[in-house]
C-alpha cells in the first residue's frame, strides 16, 4: 500500500473508533466504559504487535512483558514522584531497551529460539517483579498513583478513556507510517523470504530488531494506559496468557492488516463479555477460532471479508483477473550503476558439501559491458558458484573480488549493496503484495525516498515491460511478469554486476525476446551481466562470452560458436564414449561436419 493509502486507511479507522468509542462516554455507560478502556489499551498493543508478527513474521511469545514492564515502570516512577512526562519516557524506554537486548541475542538464530527466548525473558521478568516486593508490591501488586493534569483526573476507566482514544489514533497513524516506510517494506520482505530479502540488500537482523523495538513502544504505551485504567496492577499483567491473547487478537482479526489488529482486539475483548452464556466453554471456542483462522488459510476476519468482497465483485464483473495480461513494450532508459566500473574476479574458488566437491578451483572474470553466459551440465556447480559469489555460501578457499573489494565471507545483503545483485531460479514473491510493493524496498535501499523512490520504481517497471502493473497483486500476474519483476527488483539496487539465474525458464519465444532486449540494454549501460541458463538457443544468441563449468571447474571458455563446437563441451553434455579418452576425435569431427 502506498503511504497515502495507508494513512487514509488509518484515518478511516480512527474516525470509526472515535465515533463508536465516544458513545459509552457520552451515554455515561459505566460498564461499557470499563470494557472499552481495557479493549482500547489492548488495541494499542495489538496494533504494535502487528508490526512484529504481522509485518515482520516474528512470533514473540512474551510480548506482554513489554506491556507489563511499561505499566510497572510507569507506576513505580510515579510512586517515586518522578514527573509524569519523565515517567512515560522511562516506561517506554526500558521496554525498548529490553527489546533491543532480546533481539540481538535471539534473532541471530532460528525463529523457534526467538519465540522461546521471548517467553523465557517474560517469565524471568515476571519472576523478578513478583519477588521484588519492596518496589513492586510483589504478588499482591501495587496501586497506580493518580494522574491529574490541570485538575482533570486521568485515572480510572472514565478518566483514562479520552487518553486511550487519543493514543489509539496516534497508534493507528504511527502504524500506517511505519508500515508504509522503507523499514516496513523491508520488514515484509524479510517476513516473506528471508534469503531473498538478504540477496536484495536488506539487512535482516537490523530490520527485525527495529520492528521488534517499535512493537515494544506500542506495548509499553498500552501498559501505561492499562495501569491508569485499572489503578492497580499485579504480576499477572505479564503472564503468558496475556501474550497469547495478543496473538489470538491478531490472528483472529487478520495478521498483517491494521484493520485486522483493530477488529481482533475488539472481538476477542468483547466476545467473552457478550457471550457469557457459553461460560467456561470460552477457552475451547477461543482455541477453535484460532485454529480455524489458520486452517481456513485466510487472514482472519479481515481476510475472510476481503475474499467475500472479491467474490461478489467477480460475480458482477466476470473478470478472471489479469490472466490475459500481456507484456508492455519496454521503455528506453538507462540503468546507471552506482560507483566506479569494476570487474568481478572469481579466483581459485573451492566449495564442498559433505564429500562432494561442488566447486574445485574456479577462476572466471566478468567484465563491465559484457553479457557473460555461465553454462554447464546438471550438477556442474553453476548454482553453487552463484551462491558463493552472492554470499549465500562462504567459499572453502579462493577469493571473489569486485575491483579492490573482497566479497568472500561477507553477508548476502552486504554483497548486494556492494553492487552485485541477483535473481533467483524460482521467483520468490508474496502473492498479496503489489508489484510496486516488491520493487520499492529495493529502490529505497539505495537511499531514494518518497516520491523520488516511487518514480524510480515506476520507471524500472516501464523499462522491464511491466508498465501499468504497479498496483496489481503479484498473485494474479502471469509467470513472465514475475520473472521480469525479479529483474526490476535486482536493477533497483543499481548493481555493477547482475547475476540472472535461469531468467528465461518458462518464457515463450516472444517473452524471451523481450528479455533479451532488456539484457542488451544493460550491456550498453556497462553492467556486467551473467546469465545462467539451460535454454541454449537463448543464451548462446545473447552472450558474447561463455564459460562452461563441468564437475566444479571451468572446462571451456570462449565465444558461443567456439563453445558449441568445442569437443570438451560436447563431451561434457553428451558424455564420453569411454572414460579414458578426453573427447573421441572421430566423434567430434562427425558433429563438426554438421554445423
Amino acid at each position, binding site marked *: 500500500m502506498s503511504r497515502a493509502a495507508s494513512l487514509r486507511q488509518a484515518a478511516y479507522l480512527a474516525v470509526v473508533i472515535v465515533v463508536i468509542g465516544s458513545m459509552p462516554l457520552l451515554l455515561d455507560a459505566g460498564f461499557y466504559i470499563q470494557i472499552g478502556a481495557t479493549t482500547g489499551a489492548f488495541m494499542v498493543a495489538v496494533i504494535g504487535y502487528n508490526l512484529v508478527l504481522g509485518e515482520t513474521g516474528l512470533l514473540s511469545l512474551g510480548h506482554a512483558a513489554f506491556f507489563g514492564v511499561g505499566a510497572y515502570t510507569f507506576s513505580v516512577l510515579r510512586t517515586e514522584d518522578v514527573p509524569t512526562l519523565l515517567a512515560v519516557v522511562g516506561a517506554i524506554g526500558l521496554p525498548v531497551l529490553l527489546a533491543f537486548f532480546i533481539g540481538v541475542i535471539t534473532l541471530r538464530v532460528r525463529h523457534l529460539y526467538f519465540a522461546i527466548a521471548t517467553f523465557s525473558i517474560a517469565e524471568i521478568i515476571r519472576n523478578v517483579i513478583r519477588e521484588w516486593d519492596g518496589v513492586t508490591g510483589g504478588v499482591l501488586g501495587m496501586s497506580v498513583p493518580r494522574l491529574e493534569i490541570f485538575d482533570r483526573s486521568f485515572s480510572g476507566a472514565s478518566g483514562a478513556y479520552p487518553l486511550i482514544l487519543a493514543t489509539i489514533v496516534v497508534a493507528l497513524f504511527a502504524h500506517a507510517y511505519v508500515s508504509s516506510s522503507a523499514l516496513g517494506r523491508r520488514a515484509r520482505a524479510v517476513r516473506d523470504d528471508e534469503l531473498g530479502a538478504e540477496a536484495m540488500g536488506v539487512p535482516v537482523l537490523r530490520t527485525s530488531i527495529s520492528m521488534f523495538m517499535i512493537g515494544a513502544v506500542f506495548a509499553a504505551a498500552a501498559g501505561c494506559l492499562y495501569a491508569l485504567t485499572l489503578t492497580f496492577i499485579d504480576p499477572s499483567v505479564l503472564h503468558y496468557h496475556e501474550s497469547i491473547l495478543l496473538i489470538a487478537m491478531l490472528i483472529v482479526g487478520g495478521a498483517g492488516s491494521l484493520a485486522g489488529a483493530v477488529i481482533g482486539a475488539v472481538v476477542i475483548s468483547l466476545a467473552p463479555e457478550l457471550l457469557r452464556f457459553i461460560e467456561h466453554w470460552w477457552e475451547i471456542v477461543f482455541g477453535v477460532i484460532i485454529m480455524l483462522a489458520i486452517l481456513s488459510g485466510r487472514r482472519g476476519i479481515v481476510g475472510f471479508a476481503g475474499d467475500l468482497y472479491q467474490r461478489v465483485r467477480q460475480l458482477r464483473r466476470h473478470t478472471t483477473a489479469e490472466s490475459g495480461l500481456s507484456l508492455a513494450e519496454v521503455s528506453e532508459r538507462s540503468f546507471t550503476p552506482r560507483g566506479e566500473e569494476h570487474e568481478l574476479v572469481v579466483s581459485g574458488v573451492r566449495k564442498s558439501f*559433505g*564429500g*562432494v566437491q561442488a566447486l574445485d578451483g574456479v577462476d572466471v572474470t566478468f567484465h563491465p559491458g559484457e553479457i557473460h553466459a555461465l553454462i554447464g*551440465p*546438471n*550438477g556442474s556447480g553453476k548454482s553453487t558458484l552463484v551462491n558463493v559469489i552472492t554470499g549465500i555460501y562462504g567459499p572453502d578457499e579462493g577469493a571473489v573480488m569486485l575491483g579492490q573489494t573482497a566479497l568472500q565471507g561477507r553477508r548476502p545483503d552486504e554483497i548486494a549493496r556492494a553492487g552485485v545483485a541477483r535473481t533467483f531460479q524460482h521467483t520468490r514473491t508474496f502473492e498479496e503484495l503489489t508489484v510496486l510493493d516488491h520493487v520499492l524496498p529495493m529502490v529505497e535501499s539505495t537511499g531514494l525516498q518518497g516520491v523520488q523512490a516511487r518514480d524510480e520504481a515506476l520507471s524500472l517497471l516501464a523499462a522491464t515491460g511491466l508498465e501499468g502493473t504497479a498496483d496489481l497483486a503479484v498473485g494474479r500476474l*502471469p*509467470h513472465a511478469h514475475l520473472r521480469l519483476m525479479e529483474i526490476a527488483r535486482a536493477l533497483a539496487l543499481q548493481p555493477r554486476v547482475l547475476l540472472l539465474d*535461469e531468467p528465461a*525458464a*518458462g518464457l515463450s519465444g516472444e517473452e524471451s525476446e523481450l528479455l533479451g532486449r532488456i539484457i542488451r540494454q544493460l550491456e550498453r549501460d556497462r553492467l556486467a551481466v551473467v546469465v545462467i541458463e*539451460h*535454454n*541454449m*538457443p537463448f543464451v*548462446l544468441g545473447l552472450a558474447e562470452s561463455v564459460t562452461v563449468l563441468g*564437475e566444479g571447474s571451468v572446462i571451456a571458455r570462449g565465444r558461443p560458436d567456439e563453445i*558449441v563446437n568445442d569437443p570438451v563441451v*560436447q*563431451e561434457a*553434455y*553428451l*558424455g*564420453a*564414449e*569411454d*572414460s579414458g579418452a578426453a573427447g573421441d576425435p572421430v*566423434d567430434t569431427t*562427425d*558433429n563438426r561436419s*554438421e*554445423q
Partner: protein
Amino acid sequence: MIQVKGLEVRYGAVTALQDVSLQVDEGECVAVLGANGAGKTSLLRAISGFAPTAAGEIRFKDESIVGQRPENIVRSGMSHVPEGRGILGQLTVRENLELATAPWRRRGDSIDEDLERVHSLFPKLAERRDQRAISLSGGEAQMLAIGRGLMARPRVMLLDEPSLGLAPVIVTRVFDVLEEVAAQQLALLIVEQNAKQALRVADRVYVLSQGNVVMEGPAAEVRDDPKMAEAYFGV
C-alpha cells in the same frame, strides 16, 4: 510395462512437459536423453507419482497409476532412483538397503539373499555396510542408490541421471553395472544427459528438448543421428 500417453506436467504457470508419449516394455532398457531443463526429471517424477499430471495417461502393468500415491506405485513394483541419489546420510549403508525392502518384506522374511546380490554387484557396499551413508563418495553413493532400487525387487527401475556429478571413470563403471542389471529380467528407464553412456546400454532412446519429445528410435539409429547435438545446443 509402462505406457505414457500425451503427458503434460505443469508447475504453476510453467509447463515442464508437453504431450510426451513413451513406452517401456518388459525387460527393455529405455533411455531418455536431453540437456538439463529439458524436462527429464519431471517425466520420471510424474511416472512415479511425485509430480502432478496435468493431462495425459500413465499406465503401469496395464493399470492407470495417475493420481496414485508414490509409495504405493513403488510398492507395486517400480523403483525410483532419484536425481542426486537421495541417500539417507544419517542411516548406515545397510539400513538404507534394508529399508528399500519395504514393498515386499513381511515379518520374518530374510533379506540376506537380496543383500548378497547387491553386494556382489557392488563389493564396496559390503565393505562399508555399517558406515553412515553420508561418508560415501559420490560414486559409492550412486551404487548405493542403485542397490537400494534393486532391493525393492522391482519389475522396472527408473534412474534419474545416474552420471550426475561423477568423474568419467566412475560414470563408465556405473553404466557397466546398469548394463549387467539390464541383462537380467528387469526393465530400466534411464533419464540421462550423458548421451554416449546411455546409448551404450539402452535398447531404445527418446530425446527430450524443452519439454517435448524431438526424436525417438532404436539406440543404434539415434547414436549416429546429427540431430542429437541440435537437441542439446539448439544450433
